[in-house]
Every structure is written in C-alpha cells, then in structure tokens.
C-alpha cells in the first residue's frame, strides 16, 4: 500500500486539515476494531514508539497501535491556529518537527506569502518534506490544502506546490483549494486568488476547488432541514458527511461544519486507495481518467447523501436518489450547475454496500440528461470501495471535469479586474521584494486563457460533431 503526505498551509488549510485528521482517526477506529496498525492506517498515519529517546520516536511496522502520527506538515505564518491545534485534542497526532510557523502572518498579501516567506522557508519546508518522506515506503501523493483568498495559504501554499514539483516530480500533487465567496471579508482576495490560480494551473496534477459560499449554503440547508423536520421524515444527524460527532474534538467552531464537508471530500477521495473493494480506484487513477489536457485539471466535486432523509425507506430508491443528487446544483462544492454545462469526464466513487449493477443502472438512467463532450461520450470512471463512511450504509463522491467551473473563474476575473483597474492595494504588493507587476498581468492572462479553453469546449455542446473519419487501410 502507498502513503500520502498532507501539507496544510495557512489558517484555512490548517483548520480544514484538522477536521480531516479528526475524521480520519474516527473512520479508522470504526473499521479497525482490533487496534492493529494495518496497511489502511499506514496510508496517512505512522505508528510510533514514543518511548524511543531520539525525540521523534521510531516507526513500528505492524502490530499494536502505539502512537499514531499524522503524515502531515503544518505551515502557517502566524502562530494562533497551529497553537490552538497543539493545545487541542489532536495534539498527540502531531509533533513539533512537523510544524513550521512564524509570528506575523502574510496580511492577506499573496506576495508576502509567496515571495518573502517563500524564500525564507523554502529550505526548511523541503527538509521537513524529506523527513516525512523517509517514513514512507512508497509515497504516492501530496495533498495540499489551503485557501485562495488569504496571504499565507495562497502565496506560500502555491510556492510549496512548485517546490514539490521541482524536488519530487514523480509524486503527484492534489490541491484542495478553498475559494473565497463574493462577499469575502478579505478585500484583496481576488488578487490573491488569481495569482495563486496561475500556480495551480501550471504546477498541480489536479485541483479540487471548493467555494465557501457553497459550503455555507449546504450547512444552512442541513440546519434548516434539521429544524423543520416533518413528522415521519427525520434527518440523520449523526451522518459523518455532515457532522463531526464521534471525533475527538467536541466543541464546534464557526468554520467546523463547513470544514467537515471538505474533510469528507478528502476521506472519500482516498477511501478506495485505503480499503478494499471489488473495483479499486487508486489515487493515480484520478488524474489519469479525469484530466484529458494537462491544464484542464479542475475537478468539481459533490458529496451525497448530504441531506439523509429517513422517509425514503426503500433501499434502492434511496440509493438511486443518492446518484441523482450527486448531479444536482445544491450538492456541488462550488456554485455550479454541471448538468447544464459540458462534461469532459466524470468519476463516481462509491462506498459501502453498492454493486456494479447499481452503478450500471444509475449511469444508464442519468446519462441521457448529462451532456458529454463529443470525444468522451462514455466518459465515466467508477470505483467501488466496500467500507462505507461511519454512520452511513453507502455514499458517493462524484468528481466532474466540467465546464461549469467557468463562471466561478469568470467571476474571480471580474473581481480582480475591478480592483486592478483602480490599482487598488497594488502598492502593498509591489513593495514586496521580488514582486513585479508582471506577476499580475501574467496571472490574469493565464486565467483568461484557461477560461477561453473551457469556452471553446463549451461551444461544442450543442453542435452535432461527426465521428472522426477512420483510418483507411489498403485491403
């Protein structure tokens, strides 16, 4: 089995990362009743004998679980968030060698994160990553988590991304990027996001964009449904996809409900690589199947069931509803409508008691209503993992490479241009050593051409494209 390393950067990255570790521990504790350190656990955790006196402990290959350490690197340029984690219930999962902090933050300035902290911390970050790699016998993937709107996550985070590409090119890089909503309190978030996007487009193997507004909407809808339960329709409160219950962290902080959703995205994304199933989907299959052209690697995700209603009691109907929901607007983790845009490719990652016939039936049923690009009319990738999430009998993560990401990007571009036309706040960036105006122009043109690439594909949607005429051979 392979291992992955999570690199969480900035406030958002660390808060989301924490929810991930909490839920991952809960999931493994639920599956692994014997307390044995197994292959599944080894993908994200080390098993450490802390009695060894070298300070870091030594790894134990199998046997009883001693002390689990997350394969994580926590980076923030202020101390608050990371300190809170170290004082919280997850403190034993990390040790000081996994942390990189500074005191003053990047002040919502991409240039400070990317240029200033990037050059100061580059060596140290590389060294920490190498250290984490030494504990892996077959490292497969880096998961990078950060927000796009702030300074540290977007600036230093995207610097870490290109560092990973340079130093460890054969290890794939999957980025979970939290996009700011339109009413974001960070005024410079459009700058930061666009500057970071160029890095993501050029250096990531794939990106899972998540929009805060969508997370808010989902959380509100869940709360609303929980409070207005009709008789006979009871919402399941303990479903993992929506709650953090059962984890070691008890009190809920403002972002926690939203971050649980993102954490679940990552859990479901990696479940088939960790647990067995009748149709495994390894992490390297994600890019292979969903990225037809290197730059177009933004995958829209949706998780179901989110609003588990107990009144849909017929098992197959509930199951089919799960598939239907995965394509509806209000289950997407960005504000987008995949059904009315163009699919380049789509993956269905199913967990729990679901068979290949359930998959076939639902794909046949949904296919006619979903527009696929002409050269990938059967563009489905499927995975069946037999271990469901805690509290559910089954779940589905849909990943779509779909032109519906375009509006989010256009929106971002518009907000960027609005600021940039007035040169608002620009001097804060240009003051930073190594930062030039060229970064802005190149970033915006990178985004524009990305949007253009999606547009060109989108334009083929309603056209009847004839099959390419076949090779003729001498007979």
């Amino acid at each position, binding site marked *: *089995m*392979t291992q992955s390393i999570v690199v969480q950067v900035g406030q958002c990255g660390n808060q989301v990362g924490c929810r991930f570790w909490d839920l991952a521990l809960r999931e493994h504790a639920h599956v692994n009743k014997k307390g044995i350190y197994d*292959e599944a656990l080894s993908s994200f955790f080390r098993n450490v004998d802390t009695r060894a006196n070298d300070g870091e402990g030594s790894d134990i290959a199998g046997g009883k679980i001693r002390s689990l350490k997350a394969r994580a690197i926590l980076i923030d340029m202020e101390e608050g968030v990371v300190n809170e984690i170290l004082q919280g219930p997850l403190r034993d999962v990390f040790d000081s060698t996994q942390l990189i902090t500074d005191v003053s933050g990047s002040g919502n300035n991409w240039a400070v994160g990317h240029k200033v902290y990037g050059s100061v911390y580059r060596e140290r970050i590389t060294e920490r990553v190498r250290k984490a790699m030494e504990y892996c*016998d*077959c490292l*497969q993937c880096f998961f990078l988590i950060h927000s796009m709107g702030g300074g540290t996550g977007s600036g230093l985070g995207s610097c870490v991304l290109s560092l990973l590409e340079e130093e460890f090119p054969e290890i794939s890089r999957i980025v979970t990027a939290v996009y700011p909503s339109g009413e974001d309190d960070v005024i410079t978030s459009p700058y930061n996001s666009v500057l970071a996007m160029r890095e993501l487009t050029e250096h990531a193997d794939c990106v899972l964009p998540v929009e805060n507004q969508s997370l808010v909407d989902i959380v509100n809808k869940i709360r609303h449904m929980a409070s207005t339960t009709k008789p006979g329709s009871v919402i399941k409160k303990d479903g993992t996809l929506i709650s953090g219950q059962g984890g070691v962290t008890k009190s809920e902080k403002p972002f926690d409900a939203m971050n649980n959703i993102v954490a679940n995205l990552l859990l479901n994304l990696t479940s088939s690589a960790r647990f*067995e199933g*009748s*149709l*495994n989907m*390894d992490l*390297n*299959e994600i*890019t*292979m*199947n*969903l*990225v*037809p*052209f*290197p730059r177009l690697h933004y995958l829209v995700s949706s998780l179901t069931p989110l609003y588990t209603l107990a009144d849909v009691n017929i098992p197959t109907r509930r199951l089919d509803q799960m598939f239907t929901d995965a394509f509806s607007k209000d289950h997407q983790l960005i504000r987008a409508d995949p059904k009315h845009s163009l699919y380049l*490719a789509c993956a269905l990652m199913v967990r729990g008691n679901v*068979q*290949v*016939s*359930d998959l*076939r039936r639902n*794909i*046949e049923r949904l*296919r006619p209503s979903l527009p696929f690009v*002409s*050269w*990938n*009319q*059967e*563009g*489905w*990738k*499927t995975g*069946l993992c037999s271990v469901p999430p805690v509290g559910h009998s089954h779940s589905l993560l849909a990943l779509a490479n779909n032109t519906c990401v375009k509006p989010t990007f256009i929106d971002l571009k518009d907000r960027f241009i609005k600021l940039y036309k007035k040169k608002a706040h620009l001097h804060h960036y240009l003051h930073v050593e190594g930062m030039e105006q060229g970064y802005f122009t190149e970033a915006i043109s990178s985004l524009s051409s990305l949007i253009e690439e999606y547009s060109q594909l989108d334009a083929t949607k309603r056209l009847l494209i004839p*099959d*390419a005429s*076949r*090779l*003729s*051979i001498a*007979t």
Partner: protein
Amino acid sequence: MSIVTVQLGQCGNQIGQELFDVITSDTNEAQRYKLSVEGKAYGVCSQERFFHDELTGELSARAVLIDMEPKVITQTMATAAKSGRWKYGDRSFFCQKQGSGNNWANGFCVHGPRHEEAVGDLVRREVERCDRLAGILTLMSVAGGTGSGVGTYITQCLRDTYPHSLILNQLTWPYGTGEVIVQNYNSILTLSHLYQCSDAILVHENDTVHRICAQLMNIKHISFSDVNKVIAHQLGSVLQPAHTQSTCSQYSRNPIGELMATLVCHPEYRLLGLCSIPQMPSSSLAYSAFTWPGLLKHLRQMLISSTKMEEGIDWQVQATAVGQRTADKCGGFNTSMANLLILRGKDVSSADARGFLDPALYSPWLPAEGAFSTWRSAIPFNRYEKSATLVSNSQSLLKPLDHMVGKAWNMFASRAYVHQYTKFGISEEDFLDSFTCLEQVLSSYRHL
C-alpha cells in the same frame, strides 16, 4: 498435461479465483458421479491439468498471481484458502505497492520491464512443476493499466521464453458505457500488441455477461463476483476434460492445443468468442429438463444471428448457401471462420451436431471440413445435466471491436489524454500503429 494460469490485475485475479473454484467443485461433483470409473479419470485429468499436490496433500493451483497493488492479491489468496478445497501457492504471487493507474503505458513501459524477471521466475517455477506443459492461460482485463499493460508485456516475454508453447489470452472487455475513461485506448494498445504474440485471444464482454446475470441467472444485485462466476463457468466448460475427435475413448490431454488446431488456422483471425447454454439460477436446475436437439438448435441460431445469450434470439436470420448470398439475405448473418462445440452431460453421444457442419455457416474461401470440431464428455458439468458451449472464431466480435476502435479514434483525433501516455514513452506513432493493426483485423473479419 497441465496448464499454467497467469492472473494479472484486479480483474484477472478475481476471475482466476472463481475459475479454480468452479473447477474444483465440478471435479468433486464428478467423482461422486455414478459412472465412477469415468468420473475418476475425469478427476485425475482435471487435477493434473490445474493443480499440483502440496506435501500437505492440499491442492495448489498451477497459477501465478500478479498485480501492481497488494489489496486484490491479499483478498484473492484469502478467499481461495477459505474454500478448503484448494489454495494458491504461498509464494506464487507478485505484487507491488502502487497500481498502474489505468495507464497502459505505465504498465507496459515501466512496470512490465521492471518486474519481468521476478514474474518470469514465478512462471518458470510453475512450468517446471508440470510433467508436460499444455499451454499458458493468461487472465486479464483490457481497460485498466496492470492487466492490460503489464499483461501485454508479460505475454511478449512468455512468447520469447517459451517459443513452442501455446499462449491463450483470456481478455475481459469493459462495459461499453465505461468504467475507465481511457478504456478504449488501453484496449486498442493491448489488442494490437497481443495480436503479434498471442496464439489466440478469448474474449468476454462485461456487458454480455452482465446481461446473462440479469436475465438468465435472475440476479437482482449483480456483483463482480456474480459476473466472474459466469465467466468462470464458461471457461471451465471449455477447459475441463473432454473427449475430442482425435482422442475418442480417452480424455484429451491437450485442450489448448486442440482448441487452437480447430479455431485458429490463419494468423489474421485469432479473436474467439464464447457462449454457453443453458445458464440459469442453480435453484432452478432441478426443475429443468433439456433435450440435445433443443439445446443445439438454440445454440446454432445464437451463432448465426450473433446472439451472445439465450434470450432474444433472432430466428429470422438464416444460413444461406454461399452461391445465394445477397446483401439483404445476409442481414445480421454471422459468418464463421471456425467453431468448436463442447457438449457435456447425459446421453451426450446421442447429440447430433451436424447442424454446425453446414458449409453455409462458413466463409466460402475456406474448406468447411476442419472448420468444426466437437468435444464430448458424459459427465455433467457444474451441476447442469446437459450443457453446451460454443467457442467460435466468427464475426461476432466485429461490432464491439469496431465500437472500441471508433471511440478510441474519436478521442485520439482531439489528442485527449495522449499526454498521459507519451509521459511513459508511448508516442502518437505507437497509437497510429495500433489503429492500423486493428483496422486491418476489422477489415479481415468484415470480408470473411
């Protein structure tokens, strides 16, 4: 003589486990059979073919398990051991930590060469355990990266190492509506390369088998294990002992050799399809009675109308004598190159298979005699009182192959996903070579 099975990738390993399971349970059943002498000979022959005895007296499959990730092999070996009837050799597997990621090029250009030696050693060990080798059977899917890419590479190596042994590649073709997005690329790369080094390619289409599970076996929630049981049943019905025309009173010792002698007489034509009847839930078997004329009539119509299961057979299609074939009369008619019929069960000697000898079934430019053989065994197979399996080298795979090549070509025209292959050393020219090879195969079958 013995067969060494090489199971590759998730699909190949999961199917292999079901195959050995069917074989052992069928053999156990046969030994209880009332013609005890015959039953015993059947058992001895089958065991020599597929198993060797461990010192402990356990049956150990003559098989090698290969995957680039550990989970499937761990599960497959455990499931086999749980059966209590047979197991895999403790050291006859090879796995790595990380799969080929559905990338044929990764399997073929990276994993294959890197592990050639280790895999070659495992196969050699099995081969050396056989008194005589009848041939090598590989099991793999074409859609993923390991079975298809590593499987193709290993087949090439086996061809070099065992130039005089027969290699039969059993391939599972993906569901048409997709499970792997690059499945058509992986499929064409596999098929075009195997066409150069395999002796015969035996195809199961997941769509067809799935329909058999749904409509004939009446399974509501079809799992891969259900699908694999059907595939294993069909394979077992071919590979279990039978009397061939040349062996008459004895069980044939070389099923793969005789199968190829009948079915593959021209290198341009090596795609074999398979259909079996009857297929039904085991709970209904006790209440069903079949006659040989009835079974063979259905099977013959399935052949000429290219219906791959006993349901929705088109009875309009007729075999027309060669001179009278016209475009409209041939509509839907499936021309054969060669056919092999395997009959098992009660009163098998009375079954009249002459309907398959009709020259009208075969390509006009080939002598019809020699294009058809029958194997028989009086021992019922896998609890079916009577059963018939037809292995045919005909146009029946033309349509699915044409779809596969067409879809791959469409994708290739936009160059989508090609960068994932060039990364590992498969160039656009390599793709073009594969397309050319398969267009040639298609054209040959079309003009049968």
